[in-house]
């Protein structure tokens, strides 16, 4: 199938277009079982993926589904549909192209199953749902190609694992299925190729010309960034200047809350009334679509956005990308920058805006890494078993299966190639019985083995519940926000349930760029009224918080080690110099620990540079050690570079505190009772089908789900500590939220070189930590001691001591 049919050739030449070499190479590779294309944004990557399909459909009409296109974003699927229809219509091809996502109307979804289009554009979740139907073999009959777009993004998440398991199923239904992956530049293409291909098929890797070197710099402002926080409000005038001098600017933020606040401030300063929009995952779909459409029409000068715009949507004429806040990860930065200047041969232009003083250092380090092409990446390890459990349930919904067959099938997915039969059987047993502690409860006995040896749903009606809970995205539970007087109208967006719970009537917050007043909760909807006059309370939808990567952290420490810092702005140079004078700067092969009194309490600051999650874990482990050592810790706060702990007694000996073995032992005991574990458990238990977020009767509220998952967790912990779900949770937590491997890596790196400095007062580097949000209280003996002190004080103060006859303790 090499070469293009004449009609497509003509269309190309009529537009004066020539095929890119990688597009040609993709045509040549059309018959390979698996091909991975690595190309920069704007390099005609998607067209390269679809050309073989168009060529094939032009020469040989095909009844039914020919090509399945999967992207991580719904918006991307819609975008591709638009972009693909133009050539198809202009060439005059008789090809039906449709998308199918959670937003597709039910009637169309139904029709798509009965009469599938030639090209179906969808997401991993919608595909998982499709393969759960009994009619999946009919719908996918004759499928020839599957294109996985933005596979680099999927490869890092459970969504990718679920997708690859779904592909293993499709491959059984359609043995000749060809797989194509489209990826942005990554550090390790081979790892992605191994995920894409059916194990152990080979996968060809095509690498396109990466295009010109991007033009990235840090935004210089007259005013220095603040000491802490993530708002970057100080940079608003400078950012407005840039918007004015560019055609279209994308302004990326790390969290939704930050995007909201920034957008609000930008509007207040936007005296010329430049058309600026906002786009993030909490906004209502219609509102997002409106912004997307306005963007495509070129009507917006800037869009304030989050990762929901990260992936390769064709944004037309974006000529500047601004990243607010340190990028945390060089790879993501480079991929974001690729968004700018969507023409293949023009360099991308990007600006980094540090949100606080420390981020200045991080931005400079990230710039240096991006220029050097030093991308970060951590290997992910074996595919997670909670996703496998869900896949087993999905398989059972579609049809009864033999364990041998399903095991053989799932181990063709790269991430599960090393899965042992024992591990598989354990997952199967869990989906069948719920596991030892839960075996008495009907609801968790989902599967039964029939006399013919095949596994099937114990109750066919449970298929509906299973389908309602398909997916691996664990967004925090959210509530819709709606104007009170507009009950039938469209919602303004969504806020996290935890945030909604903190609101009292009269409170104001930001959503979709407007200030609203909270009136009350009605039928699980937050009712609000517009309120332009007040200073808003911040909408704290948490969004995703990323940990600074190992590579970037190492670069920051290297930067600290320089004798001078010509690449840093003066205010930051002065800050670091002051730290050097008053204490010391952290070094790569040593561990700096500062101990000082402040504000009536003792503080200890550990500069581990292990990333937010690991520093958080370190905080939990160290406070436990301090509790054991009688140092009465009260709480801690962690950032990407340090953990600050406060308590009643000073830390004077570092080696007792930071002994690797006691930390590791502490981890074992501590992990079980920990809130991070409970959060991880909740996510995994939901994926594996132990907890249902959606039921046919009603959607469970987040707090109910938290409540029940916490009880379940405690229950299993107590009565069945070897339960599969607890094993999964531990594995997950260790590489995700707990990130213990980075603590190990840090302890190994520094060895015995611990520098404990006892200082008279708080240091320049530690001070911003006190301003950080997310302080974690420690409930231990310090609390009892404080409580005893406080109750004694209150009793004396009130004179109640004398009034009440109180006997001494028994």
């Amino acid at each position, binding site marked *: 199938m090499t070469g293009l049919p004449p009609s497509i050739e003509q269309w190309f030449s009529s537009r004066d277009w020539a095929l890119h070499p990688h597009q040609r190479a993709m045509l040549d590779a059309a018959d390979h079982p698996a091909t991975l294309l690595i190309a920069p944004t704007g390099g005609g990557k998607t067209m390269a993926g679809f050309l073989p399909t168009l060529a094939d459909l032009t020469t040989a009409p095909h009844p039914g589904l020919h090509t399945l296109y999967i992207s991580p974003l719904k918006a991307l699927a819609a975008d591709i549909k638009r972009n693909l229809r133009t050539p198809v219509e202009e060439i005059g091809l008789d090809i039906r192209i449709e998308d199918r996502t959670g937003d597709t109307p039910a009637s169309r979804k139904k029709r798509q199953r009965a009469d599938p289009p030639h090209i179906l554009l969808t997401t991993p979740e919608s595909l998982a749902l499709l393969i759960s139907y009994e009619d999946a073999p009919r719908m996918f009959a004759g499928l020839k190609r599957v294109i996985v777009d933005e596979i680099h993004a999927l490869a890092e998440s459970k969504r990718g694992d679920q997708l690859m398991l779904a592909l293993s199923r499709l491959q059984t239904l359609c043995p000749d299925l060809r797989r194509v992956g489209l990826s942005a530049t990554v550090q390790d293409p081979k790892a992605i190729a191994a995920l894409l291909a059916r194990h152990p098929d080979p996968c060809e890797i095509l690498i396109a010309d990466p295009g010109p070197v991007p033009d990235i710099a840090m935004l210089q402002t007259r005013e220095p960034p603040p000491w802490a926080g993530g708002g970057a409000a100080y940079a608003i005038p400078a950012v407005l200047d840039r918007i004015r001098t560019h055609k279209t600017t994308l302004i990326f933020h790390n969290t939704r809350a930050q995007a909201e606040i920034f957008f609000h401030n930008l509007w207040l300063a936007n005296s010329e009334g430049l058309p600026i929009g906002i786009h993030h995952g909490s906004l209502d779909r219609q509102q997002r679509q409106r912004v997307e459409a306005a963007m495509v029409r070129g009507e917006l000068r800037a869009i304030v956005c989050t990762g929901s715009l990260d992936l390769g949507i064709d944004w037309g004429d974006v000529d500047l990308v601004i990243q607010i806040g340190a990028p945390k990860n060089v790879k993501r930065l480079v991929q974001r920058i690729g968004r700018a200047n969507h023409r293949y041969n023009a360099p991308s232009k990007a600006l980094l805006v540090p949100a606080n003083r420390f981020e200045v250092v991080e931005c400079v380090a990230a710039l240096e890494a991006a220029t050097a092409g030093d991308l970060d990446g951590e290997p992910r390890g074996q595919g997670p078993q909670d996703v496998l459990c869900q896949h087993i349930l999905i398989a059972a919904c579609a049809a009864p299966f033999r364990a041998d067959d399903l095991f053989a099938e799932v181990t063709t997915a790269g991430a599960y190639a090393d899965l042992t039969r024992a591990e598989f059987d354990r997952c199967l047993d869990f989906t069948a019985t719920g596991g030892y502690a839960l075996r008495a409860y009907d609801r968790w006995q989902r599967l039964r083995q029939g006399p013919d040896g095949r596994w099937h749903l114990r109750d066919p009606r449970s298929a509906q519940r299973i389908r309602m809970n398909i997916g691996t995205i664990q967004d925090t539970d959210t509530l819709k926000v709606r104007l009170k007087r507009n009950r039938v109208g469209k919602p303004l967006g969504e806020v996290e349930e935890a945030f909604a719970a903190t609101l009292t009537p009269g409170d104001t917050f930001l959503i979709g760029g407007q200030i609203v007043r909270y009136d009350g909760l009605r039928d699980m909807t937050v009712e609000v009224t517009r309120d332009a006059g007040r200073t808003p309370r911040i909408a704290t939808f948490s969004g995703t918080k990323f940990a600074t990567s190992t590579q970037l952290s190492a670069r920051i420490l290297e930067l600290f080690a320089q004798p001078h810092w010509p690449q840093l702005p003066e205010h930051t140079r002065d800050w670091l110099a002051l730290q050097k004078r008053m204490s010391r700067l952290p070094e790569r092969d040593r561990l700096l620990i500062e101990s000082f009194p402040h504000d009536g309490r003792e503080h200890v600051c550990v500069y581990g540079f292990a990333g937010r999650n690991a520093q958080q874990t370190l905080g939990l482990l160290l406070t436990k050690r301090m509790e054991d050592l009688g140092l009465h810790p009260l709480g801690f706060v962690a950032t990407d570079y340090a953990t600050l702990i406060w308590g009643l007694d000073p830390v004077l000996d570092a080696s007792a505190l930071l002994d690797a073995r006691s930390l590791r032992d502490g981890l074992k005991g501590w992990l079980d009772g920990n809130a991070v574990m409970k959060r991880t458990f909740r996510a995994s238990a939901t994926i594996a089908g132990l907890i249902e977020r959606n039921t046919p009767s009603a959607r469970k509220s987040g707090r109910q789900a938290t409540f029940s998952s916490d009880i379940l967790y405690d229950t299993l912990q107590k009565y069945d500590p070897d339960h599969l779900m607890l094993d999964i949770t531990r594995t997950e937590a260790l590489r995700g939220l707990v990130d213990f491997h980075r603590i190990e890596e840090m302890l190994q790196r520094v060895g015995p070189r611990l520098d404990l400095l006892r200082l008279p007062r708080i240091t320049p580097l530690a001070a911003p930590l006190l301003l950080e949000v997310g302080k974690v209280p420690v409930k231990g003996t310090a609390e009892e001691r404080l409580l005893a002190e406080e109750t004694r004080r209150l009793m004396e103060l009130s004179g109640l001591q004398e009034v009440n006859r*109180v006997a001494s303790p028994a």
Partner: protein
Amino acid sequence: MSQAPPDPPKAPPCAPQARQTGEDPGIEHAFSLAGASLVALGSGALWWPEHRLLCVSDLHLGKSVRLAKLGGSALPPYDSRETLSRLSDDIDRTGAAMVICLGDSFDDLESAAGLPDPELRRISRLQAGRRWIWIEGNHDPGPVSLGGMHLGELTVGPLTFRHIADPAASAEVSGHFHPKVHLRMRGHSLSRPAFLLDDRRLVLPAYGSFTGGLRSTDRSLTELMRPGALALLTGPTVLAVPMPR
């Protein structure tokens, strides 16, 4: 307190205080109400040595069963098991001859009926050899099909035990509100279930696992309790503070 409290016992960090079986029973707090010498236990139970009487309130047995019906997700009734374990410990430790469950012992009548057999057997074992009184609550208004005596209220010596406080009454022991106390100390804040005590009445904290609480600053409590009321915080050590209003 006439003397400094002794050092509290070591507790693991992040552990819920005195909510679990087998944990240190805590250091108790003795006081008197209408001439009766009473002891508040760290577990949230009230002990009256003179009558060998143990009183607990708001057990909410079967709460998870009821939530399951509402929320659609069945949870094992381990919360009931947990609550009964703690009650069993308190009975063993005090050697109580009489137990008063001060209302809302069950989440509703249905959950009383739906309590699994092991829990029902456990209740029977606890009842053996002692007087057992179920006071009616607002969640479990009628008699339930379990052993023990069912009463609207009960008077023992000078004290009257009822579920919901009667503002006009005195010498009264009640429950219902699940009172808890929130304190801020040196930038650190915490919240504990607490007994509320003034010269006329005692309000018990909820004894059941997984029950929520009502802050002492809530109007229903500040209006009920007289000036000078104390809050006795449950936990490893029972500590008295002026009731935060």
